[in-house]
């Protein structure tokens, strides 16, 4: 008999059992509505030797979605493993919730960046909030205490009305959730470009710290061990969200496909963090997994798959917020703030006691078995009987066709170097003010001041510094730094180079702060993989990133892919966001960006060429995107990094700022405003003022050197073969370019700081 509650197709509402499925092989099933392809459905039938039950179909559909299975991207992501550089720091690599690296003194650091793009477009506040919550639980599940978050964000045009809806909501959501968790927000980016209209990118990163021996993995082994679900009650949040939402583009004609918005409860998450850390401290778990996309389907199948395979779950034991949920819906629910732990029987009582202490609900819902199948029961009747590996790790793999788009040549031929350049000092100054006041180059303080950067009392550097930095040991002053970068304009012009430029910039930012870059994580945001042009961008970007990491010696520890970021035929710029993690032995030696001391000498490190393709100048002054992005020289980046780190360690520089979008003048203005001091600059021989100020050549930084250290510093650069050009001195209350113009700090500050509040407040 099939008790049916009727109601909301296409979700299977009937209470379908394994027995019933075997008896009714020809029942019609809504595999198509759940996003499965015909051959995928056939494969499920083949694996099971019968039709799947409703619950099994739900599990497979959600786990085989693009978002969970990486079916389109997998073949390209393989390179990150194959091209892994020799690096002793890697403790846990790709495939776990997050990678783990050794930072010395017995500490390990785990970090990851994830996207929450589509949900944040639909409901900006909750979408962004639950994005923070999800990445924090990922880090927690590795056994680490989360210590900081970062948020790389991309929005449509700054003056578009919808940006005024999306951005404040996203920022409030990140703040509302992260601030309440007590995690300092130490970095990230905010970029505006009309290509993100309708497809904002909300990426969220988190860093966690633990001792080596505390690393936890998501696997269920040891027959007889209990499966404990703890945290928030399960409700109807985001049912089918992962499968349907992340796999299909938006289409206003199909509103039924829009799932319920997931609502976050940061207070519950804070309790979950403290409770879980106490459980770790007493070594009570054998395996642990957070519940994110695909909820219990994902957690149970991944835990079982990574372990010995066998698990039995009694689904009716799950604590519910809504008693009317069907078993399929319970499996699919994406209710937030939940974790699933594997606990040896003798530890169960203590586990539950700690949960009680923190007011966290915990229920034993099943146990690890000595079989090889994941078996789920609903009031005694079996509704799932599957080999878990086929659900979690052996999903479909696509070799999507890719092809260099026809327009790529024309785009690259449209050289930004041919654009009209400013003539004379007055026009130069006018363009400098326009540049530093443009939405992308303007101060983002209005946004970042809505995030708590001080909580936990370990923040050494936070935005607008080049990298965020937190201390992780109060005795030794050991610290970690992180920077995220990703220039979609560069990547559009050339995805291979663009991805390497993102890597190079994040690497340079970390080095400029004085920390040694160790490893990277990435969040790859692209359009539809079904478009061969997009797939080519993806293939090129991953190849560029893998090659770059090999050359720089920074392994990819893990990452996240977000596809289908497009509206109709129009995809976003390919946007590979790269997060570089660095370590610094003594945070006392960190290098800030501020020009804080008058009289210090300014040196430009690296070579400046006429490179304007994809530049901020070409965008702000000419609304132009064309030509080639700046050339990449990763050996030079490495050398620059070594010099910046040595100079920081030995006290030869007091400030450093990497040069990237906006070029030298942007960096100098930021460092001057931060320090409250002006700068007198001289255009070096062989360069014209325009190229000097606006070029975006990679592999460069500007540093402030105390006069007493000048000789030592220039000797070091000379000996190592890094071009170091003296370009001026920290002085006065204006940025003056000799013979060209002078702009007072006051007018620069007005231009730089008024833009964002003017647009959004």
């Amino acid at each position, binding site marked *: 008999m099939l008790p049916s509650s009727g109601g909301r197709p296409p979700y299977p509402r009937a209470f379908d059992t394994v027995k019933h499925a075997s008896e009714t092989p020809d029942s019609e099933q809504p595999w198509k509505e759940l996003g499965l392809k015909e051959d995928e459905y056939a494969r499920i039938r083949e694996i099971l030797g019968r039709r799947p039950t409703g619950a099994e179909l739900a599990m497979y559909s959600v786990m085989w979605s693009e978002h969970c299975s990486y079916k389109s991207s997998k073949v390209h992501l393989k390179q990150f493993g194959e091209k892994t550089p020799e690096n002793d720091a890697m403790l846990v690599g790709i495939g776990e919730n997050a990678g783990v690296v050794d930072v010395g003194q017995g500490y390990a650091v785990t970090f990851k960046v994830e996207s929450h793009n589509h949900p944040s477009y639909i409901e900006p506040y909750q979408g962004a909030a639950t994005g923070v919550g999800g990445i924090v639980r990922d880090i927690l599940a590795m056994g680490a205490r989360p210590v900081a978050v970062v948020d790389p964000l991309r929005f449509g045009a700054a003056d578009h009305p919808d940006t005024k809806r999306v951005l404040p909501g996203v920022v409030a959501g990140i703040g509302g959730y992260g601030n309440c968790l007590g995690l300092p927000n130490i970095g990230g980016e905010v970029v505006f470009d009309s290509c993100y209209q309708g497809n904002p990118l909300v990426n969220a990163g988190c860093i966690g710290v633990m001792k080596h021996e505390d690393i936890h993995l998501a696997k269920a082994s040891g027959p007889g061990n209990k499966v404990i679900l703890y945290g928030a009650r399960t409700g109807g949040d985001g049912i089918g969200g992962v499968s349907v939402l992340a796999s299909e583009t938006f289409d206003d004609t199909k509103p039924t496909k829009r799932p319920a918005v997931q609502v976050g409860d940061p207070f519950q998450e804070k309790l979950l963090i403290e409770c879980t850390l106490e459980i770790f401290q007493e070594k009570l778990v054998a395996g642990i997994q957070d519940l994110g996309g695909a909820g219990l389907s994902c957690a149970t199948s991944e835990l079982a798959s990574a372990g010995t395979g066998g698990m039995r779950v009694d689904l009716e034991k799950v604590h519910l917020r809504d008693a009317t949920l069907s078993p399929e819906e319970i499996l699919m629910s994406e209710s937030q703030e939940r974790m699933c732990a594997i606990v040896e029987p003798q530890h169960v009582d203590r586990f539950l006691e700690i949960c009680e202490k923190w007011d966290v609900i915990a229920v034993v819902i099943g146990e690890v078995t000595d079989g090889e199948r994941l078996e789920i029961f609903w009031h005694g009747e079996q509704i799932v009987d599957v080999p878990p590996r086929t659900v979690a790790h052996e999903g479909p793999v696509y070799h999507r066709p890719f092809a260099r788009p026809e327009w790529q040549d024309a785009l690259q031929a449209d050289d930004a170097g041919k654009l009209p350049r400013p003539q004379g000092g007055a026009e130069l100054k006018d363009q400098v003010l326009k540049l530093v006041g443009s939405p992308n180059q303007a101060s983002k303080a209005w946004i970042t001041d809505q995030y708590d950067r001080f909580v936990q009392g370990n923040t050494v550097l936070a935005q607008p510094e080049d990298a965020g930095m937190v*201390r992780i040991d109060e005795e030794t002053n050991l610290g970690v730094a992180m920077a995220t970068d990703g220039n979609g304009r560069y990547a559009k012009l050339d995805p291979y180079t663009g991805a390497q430029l993102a890597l190079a910039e994040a690497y340079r930012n970390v080095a400029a702060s004085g920390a040694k870059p160790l490893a990277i994580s990435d969040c790859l945001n692209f359009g539809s993989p079904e478009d061969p042009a997009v797939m080519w961008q993806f293939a090129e970007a991953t190849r560029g990133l893998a090659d770059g990491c090999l050359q720089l010696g920074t392994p990819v520890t893990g990452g996240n892919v977000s596809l289908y970021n497009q509206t109709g035929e129009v995809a976003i710029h390919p946007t590979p966001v790269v997060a570089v993690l660095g370590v610094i032995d003594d945070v006392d030696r960190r290098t800030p960006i501020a020009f804080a001391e008058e009289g210090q000498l300014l040196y430009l490190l690296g070579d400046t060429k006429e490179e304007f393709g994809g530049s901020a100048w070409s965008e702000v002054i000419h609304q132009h995107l064309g030509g080639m992005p700046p050339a990449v020289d990763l050996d030079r980046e490495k050398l620059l990094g070594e010099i910046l780190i040595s100079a920081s360690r030995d006290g030869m520089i007091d400030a450093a700022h990497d040069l990237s979008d906006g070029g030298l003048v942007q960096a100098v203005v930021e460092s001057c405003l931060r320090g409250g001091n002006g700068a007198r600059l001289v255009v070096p021989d062989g360069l014209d003022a325009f190229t000097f100020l606006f070029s975006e050549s990679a592999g460069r930084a500007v540093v402030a050197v105390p006069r007493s250290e000048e000789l030592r510093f220039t000797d070091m650069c000379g000996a190592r073969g890094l071009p170091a050009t003296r370009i001026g001195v920290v002085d006065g209350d204006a940025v003056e370019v000799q013979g060209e113009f002078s702009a007072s700090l006051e007018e620069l500050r007005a231009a730089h700081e008024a833009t964002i509040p003017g647009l959004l407040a």
Partner: protein
Amino acid sequence: MTARIGVVTFPGTLDDRDALRAARLAGAEPVSLWHRDKDLKQVDAVVLAGGFSYGDYLRAGAISRFSPVMETIIEQAKAGMPVLGICNGFQILTEAHLLPGAMLRNNHLHFICRDQKLRVENAETAWTSDYTRGQEIEVPLKNMDGRYVADERTLDELEAEGRVAFRYLDVNPNGSLRDIAGITNAAGNVVGLMPHPEHAVEPLIGTGKTDGLGFFTSILKKLVNA
């Protein structure tokens, strides 16, 4: 000999470890207190730290105020034990009526995190004696519900009795009436403020200034010399 400074952890408290660190850096013995325990473990003074206890649900501080630990703290505070409420702790103290007035959503409706200049208006409380009256200090401020309000009569009374302990300088970051950043009770043992002195106790961390350490050295001197 040193003093024992207790820091309460409520569910959702965030800055408890920071407050414990600040107490330690000042030379005191830091002691963790738990919201469910009435026992204060023989501490000499208590800090109610910042955060979002109970998620700021209902009203900031409104649920914590009824916890078992607060029963003892309210009793002891009335008997003269020094209590400092920072941010959420200040909100709890007003909800508990140990300090007058109330805290409301910032007038601009956004969370605000900034380096905030303050003027010390009362250097005679248990927590401010290491400052001088009129001294300007800079400490981090970070809050959502930081707008101090009270009726005119209460405000006039606070002013007249010198019980406005701190005032915002340059920028009023949340719309607090009369730029009030912190107040004290009449006896001077209970002080509450929105900005975070415990985040400004080390030269490298946070604002890079140590202007907040004075709170903890003030109380330590008072307790040790007592």
